[in-house]
């Protein structure tokens, strides 16, 4: 058994807009300390962040408005430090200190 002490949590900023903030206590900006490794000791990537947000930050019960089939539902954009997460490795991107992750819904009214 490893008794290695866990590294320090990762301080990040998570923002919700385009209507998603309604699911997150109507608050756009959330400062978080993300555990530095996931449930199974894997690195803290955006896939883990999404699950973490769903379980720990999202108070709204309509989880399917944010997460479907274990990932962000289609129609929600994810930006990592202003760039489409596709450019940064998608849900495999490993979060670093002071990263800014923006979730934007495209599904709300025109």
């Amino acid at each position, binding site marked *: 058994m490893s008794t290695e002490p866990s590294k320090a949590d990762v301080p990040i900023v998570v923002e919700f*807009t*385009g*209507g998603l903030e*309604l699911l997150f206590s109507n608050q756009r900006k959330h400062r978080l300390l993300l555990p530095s490794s996931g449930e199974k000791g894997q690195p803290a990537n955006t896939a883990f962040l999404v699950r973490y947000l769903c379980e720990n930050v999202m108070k709204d019960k309509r989880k399917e*408005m944010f997460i479907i089939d274990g990932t962000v*539902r*289609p*129609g929600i*954009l994810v*930006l990592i430090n*202003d*760039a*489409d997460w*596709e*450019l*940064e*490795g998608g849900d495999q*991107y490993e979060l670093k200190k002071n990263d800014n992750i923006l979730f*934007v*819904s*495209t*599904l*709300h*009214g*025109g």
Partner: protein
Amino acid sequence: MAPTPCELCKTTRALVVRPKNHQKLCKTCFINIFETEIHNTITANSLFFSGERVAIGASGGKDSTVLASVLKTLNKRYHYGLNLVLLSIDEGIKGYRDDSLETVKRNAVQYDMPLEIVGYDELYGWTMDQVVEQIGKKGNCTYCGVFRRQALDRGAARLGIKHVVTGHNADDIAETVMMNLLRGDLPRLARATSIVTASAASDIKRSKPLKYAYEKEIVYYALHKGLDYFTTECIYSPEAFRGSARTLIKNLEKVRPSAILDVVRSGEDMARLVPEEVSGVGKSGKDILVVEGEAEGAGGCGSANGRTSGGEMADMEKQLLENEKSQGNEMEITLKGQKHDRNCKNLNRMPRKLPKQQMGKCARCGYLSSQDICKACMLLEGLNKNRPKTQIQVSVERKTVIQR
């Protein structure tokens, strides 16, 4: 991971991946190409003429805000010579429209455009709050959608403006193509795909300059330009996304991003196959008849830019099942009261069976309508009689009476 450079300027960090071709672009190059493509759509379709007064249907939401911003930019850059006005509809939904109207008011200042607000109460004698009080929350989006469509035209007419542009994007069109394809509604399929809808019976022309713009790129544009837009779900359609055709489109996009434009193009191709006497659409793709409240689908509330309002896929499945049960009764009456053959073997005969659409004016309000009383007036009649009826029941009843 090293930053990905922009594929165009090769120097700046790419921030955007274009859904239609996976091109990776920096902020400046993306904004530039997005605007240029809309300019190309505008010129290729000769949407405007110099000196034209154009009303932008403005909800405060992302699509109409981006449309206003882009038109403002292009009007200046390419010397269109347009006189742009923001036109907003106040459905009378307390706490919802109030905030979005504030956004439009800020937009009017930011873009230096005059703003006109027209209320449902002054046009119809009913606010949406009052409608919901009478009929409940279910089905009220139909009222909102029908009222809204006329409201833009009436508002424009009041201003003496003959051209209304709306923020319908490629996702909206793809969704409408899907819905009308599943319904087998060829006339509406043809109208919904055309970029301009105009009519002999009304002097208001409508167009959709963002028709080929992905919703995803519209949001990127708004984000990267720091545009001020309003987002909230209409409080009267809380279930708006479940089982909606919208979800289907977004799922398709996830698997293959080009799918959205492919659906739009397929819709256009299919529309070309619809005989002119059925669609009312000229082969040029212009000078199109449009039936009030229909071009963008019957559903859809103001917040959702005319898009379908959820649950409609399930509703349709139910309807198709019922249709199959009543196969013995081969001819059925569709939503618009047209006879419509469900027998697949007769498919190529079908268009000839569809009656030509007669466009006239509503006997009550004078608004353009394919029936003697327009949809809005029929809905109002129901409301005013304090007899809640859905739109479908009303029109089928009416049609049945007429045919006897």
